[in-house]
């Protein structure tokens, strides 16, 4: 009798639990009370144990436990389910509009300093040290120590801003070379970045601009070393497939002097608007340091030789970022800088 009741209880309550869905989830606790409560079915049925014989007791006891476990598990499983669903429902409710803006603002570096940072890293990795010199310079360091005496025709190559007869605003970062050669003991490798000034203003020339000058002094330096070093520098700057080419030129402080053409990073040498169809861009001036310059700075030109190179950071930044107007750099319009993010 009792066994049948238990089986029925298991079956009926089991069905009842199965029928409970999320919308009437509260009835689950009612069932729990109805079955396991002080006056619940199972408690009542357990009390009936007392009237059973010793033989029957274990059998019935085992069944009671089985039914209890069965129902308990069933209820727990449902409860867990509902909890999970409730949690999902809550999270769903807390949904926000992810397209609302953040409160952080982000600025940007000026393209010229980004280029300089990049160049500095490359050059330091090749053993160059970074040095600086004054922007207001003596005529001596800017010209005379670089084999360009007063009234020398080579002074026509650049229109210089003068403060007075002997003091000027430097027209080239090469001025730093002359200073460093006086104080450094060879061998050494340096780069000198900085602002330079020329009395020249149009769509491709700015009266204030930036240059980077490099100088290596050692015992056995040749044009081949210059080629190797500049090839690496240009590859790291413009990409692995970059090539460079030398052309004759003239600078008072180098002999031989060259212009260095770099394969156009835009068209990879095929010819485009950037390179005016030539496939090459004239980007650097360089050469073997004129022995007269070494001697003037107190370096023994019989023992030491060197190479020097220089180029414009503005132009480099223009090529790397497809900027076609040099004036953008100094107007500092946020609409320009915003594109450097």
């Amino acid at each position, binding site marked *: 009798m009792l066994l049948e009741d238990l089986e029925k209880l298991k079956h009926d309550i089991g069905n009842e639990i199965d029928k409970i869905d999320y919308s009437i989830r509260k009835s689950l606790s009612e069932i729990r009370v109805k079955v396991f409560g002080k006056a619940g079915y199972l408690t009542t049925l357990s009390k009936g144990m007392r009237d059973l014989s010793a033989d029957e007791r274990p059998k019935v006891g085992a069944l009671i436990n089985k039914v209890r476990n069965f129902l308990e598990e069933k209820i727990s499983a449902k409860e867990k389910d509902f909890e999970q669903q409730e949690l999902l429902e809550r999270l769903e409710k807390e949904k926000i509009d992810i397209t609302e803006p953040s409160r952080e603002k982000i600025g940007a570096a000026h393209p010229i300093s980004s280029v300089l940072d990049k160049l500095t890293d490359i050059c330091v990795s090749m053993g160059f*040290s*970074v040095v600086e010199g004054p922007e207001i310079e003596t005529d001596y360091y800017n010209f005379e120590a670089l084999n360009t005496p007063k009234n020398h025709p080579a002074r026509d190559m650049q229109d210089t801003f003068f403060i007075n007869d002997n003091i000027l605003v430097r027209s080239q970062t090469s001025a730093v070379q002359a200073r460093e050669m006086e104080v450094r003991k060879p061998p050494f490798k340096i780069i000198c970045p900085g602002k330079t000034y020329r009395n020249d203003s149009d769509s491709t020339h700015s009266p204030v601009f930036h240059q980077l000058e490099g100088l290596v002094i*050692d*015992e056995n330096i040749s044009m081949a070393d210059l080629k190797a070093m500049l090839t690496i520098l240009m590859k790291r700057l413009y990409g692995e497939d970059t090539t460079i080419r030398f052309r004759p030129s003239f600078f008072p402080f180098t002999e031989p002097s060259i212009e260095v053409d770099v394969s156009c990073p835009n068209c990879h040498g095929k010819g485009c608007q950037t390179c005016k169809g030539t496939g090459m861009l004239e980007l650097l001036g360089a050469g073997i340091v004129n022995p007269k310059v070494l001697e003037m700075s107190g370096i023994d030109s019989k023992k030491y030789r060197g190479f020097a190179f220089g180029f414009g950071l503005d132009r480099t930044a223009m090529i790397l970022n497809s900027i076609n107007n040099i004036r953008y*750099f100094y107007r500092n319009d946020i609409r320009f800088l915003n594109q450097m993010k």
Partner: protein
Amino acid sequence: MKVTYNWLKEMVDIDVSPEELAKKLTSAGMEVEEIIYQNKHLHDVVVGRIIQIEKHPQADRLVVCRVDLGGGKITQILTAATNVFVGAVVPVSLEGADLVNGVKIQKAVMRGVESCGMFCSGEELGIDENYYEGAGVNGILILPSNLKIGQPIEEALMLNDVVYDIGITPNRADCMSVIGIAREVCALLGKELKKINLNYNIDVYSKDTVRNYVNVDVQTENCHRYMASAITDVKIERSPLWLRARLNAVGIKPINTMVDITNYVLIEMGQPLHAFDQKNINGGHIIVRQAKSGESINALNHNTYELEEDNMVIADEKGPMVIAGVIGGMDSCITDETKVAVLESAVFDLKSIRITGRKLGVRTDSSARYEKGVNVANAELGLARALHLVTELGCGRVVRGVIDICNKKNEAREVVGSIKLINDILGVEIPTNEMVRILNNLGIQTKAYGDKLNCKVPPHREDIENDYDLAEEIIRLYGYDVYDNVNYKLFENATITEGHTHPRLSLERKFRNALIERGFFENISYTLVSGKINEMLLLPDEEYKIVRIANPISESISCMRTSLAHSMFQNLNYNLSVGNKDLRIFEFGKAFRAKSLPVQELPYEDNMLAMAVCEDGYDFFDLKGVLESLLSKTSLKYSLVRSKKSFLHLGVSADVMDENGVVVASFGKIHPVVAKNYDIPDNVFYCEVNTQYLADLPEKVYSVAAISKYPIVERDIAVVVDEKITVGEILTSIKSACGNLYYESYLFDIYRNNSLGENKKSLAFKIRLSDMNKTLTDEEVQNVVNKVLKALSYKHGAVLR
């Protein structure tokens, strides 16, 4: 420097095309910047003869012309020109012609009559009266009747040359001439320079000599050579077409025989010449001397120049006739009436000419050559060539004898080079015979003995002095393409060196990254600014001595900036004016101050960081936070004091001061007057930091103290104090009252209300305490709080709220 293909061809047997020659010149360092084809707009234009003219049946202003084009070809052309006549020889542009003014010729029917082309005016062919007689008239260019009918107009007018515009580097003054470029062409093509015709006729039987016309005194060492010849029976006329064609091609206006000859020799030989009218040389006496102060001259460009002692002049007994090497004077120049001319061929010191040209602001074709250096040997060559042309053109009789005063020797020099050193410099092995061949082709007679190259350098190559110069000559003609496609190893033969970053630039990089993360945009501004900078920023001139440019482009960029604030405020103004808003900007750069005025030594250059913000809701404390975050990257120990910066609001600004009282940074709200000066809003916040000072500080070192195992306990207190009591003072008092239980304390609220009393404020602080050895009890905490309150009451009159 412009030269033409045909002109060069007259001196060298050129067997390559004009384009190939241009490429070769460029590869050797004579950069051909432009190739100009004279005939570019002359194709399909021929010489024709008008054989019949009839009225147009439908149009009063047009006539119908039958035109003989030679070879039996007759065509019909309509024209409105009124200067045509039967028998006139005229330029005829036919279908397909593309004239210089953009007109493209097509057959056309005008009021029922066909026109197969157009007659051209001089202007439509790109020429003027100076070049060709009749080219300047208003109407059709009427050509000489003896021209061959049917021949292309470019031939008839000698407009068929190819012109090169070549960039000559300052070391190659010798290439400022056709002969100079021709020497390069010889070296490039392995050819010999053709003999230049320097012959001229003199009447050997006449007793007349140059001394009868002129005597020369050279009284200045700035004149290295002075040569003069006399020419009688001078006929001033239009030069022949071939000569005009040459001058026209290189951009020089043909004038008359005498002037054209001097210009021709200038271009061809690079030798400036000057022709005097002999009757205007007072006393027949030429004196080359420095000018006397107070002298002046009325020059050919119609300007009068006041002269100084550093100007050299060619004078007669009355006064200056010519500013030597620069420009001639009106009174002594040749005219159409000149009967006897004196021709000067001289060499002057390049510095002297340069200084004079700069000072007087005159630059001529002559001075452009003299200031780069003309070789003394050149004077002789130039004079002989000019006299040859006088004979050839028949424009005068050359008088026997030449005056030649030469104060400077310039002969071939011996330069000895080392083959090994040259190869070491170049980093490539060039065969010795190649070196010898190249140098010989350049006119440098060279022989190799062992490692030595014995070179005889001709006078015009003053730039060649040593192995490095020889190396350059050899490699530029051997070809720089030897370096192409070779992979050299980096610093294969060099010493390994350590690479050091620059301390200040590294710090700037850190700061830059931090500022970008905080929404700031980096600016780079002109360091050249207006001289009004101090006035606009209220900076005292005495302290901020302005460095001024002596030769500025314009007032707005005539001075070195004394403060970055100027750049920042200008950039804000610009951005606001174009509609940009919520601006946060910064810049690294220098501010310049002269040590004394006028500038005698290099000025102070202070490396600064400047920041500026113009944004609604942004305040002093936002900017203070940014500055604190930057300073935290350095080892600076500092305190804040009220700032005295002239361009900041005195109540809303602060200086960051180090332990020695040095001001390292200043920041705050902009002064309202300065805001007005820059036309920017009042609520601009600005900060500047001395980056060099910070970079020079020792690197920040960390020393970590032990951390308590026990939790921090905290209490809040609110006190009412006078407005003048600062949060900073109270925080200092709290810290000292807490003793060694102090962990941290900070302000979390300020409340102001009249109920607190006049000029009072309520400040709420969190006090956080910690003990190394135990958890603090309520009683212990309360004891500390009581101590704090007592101290605040005693020191600051604070009342617990």
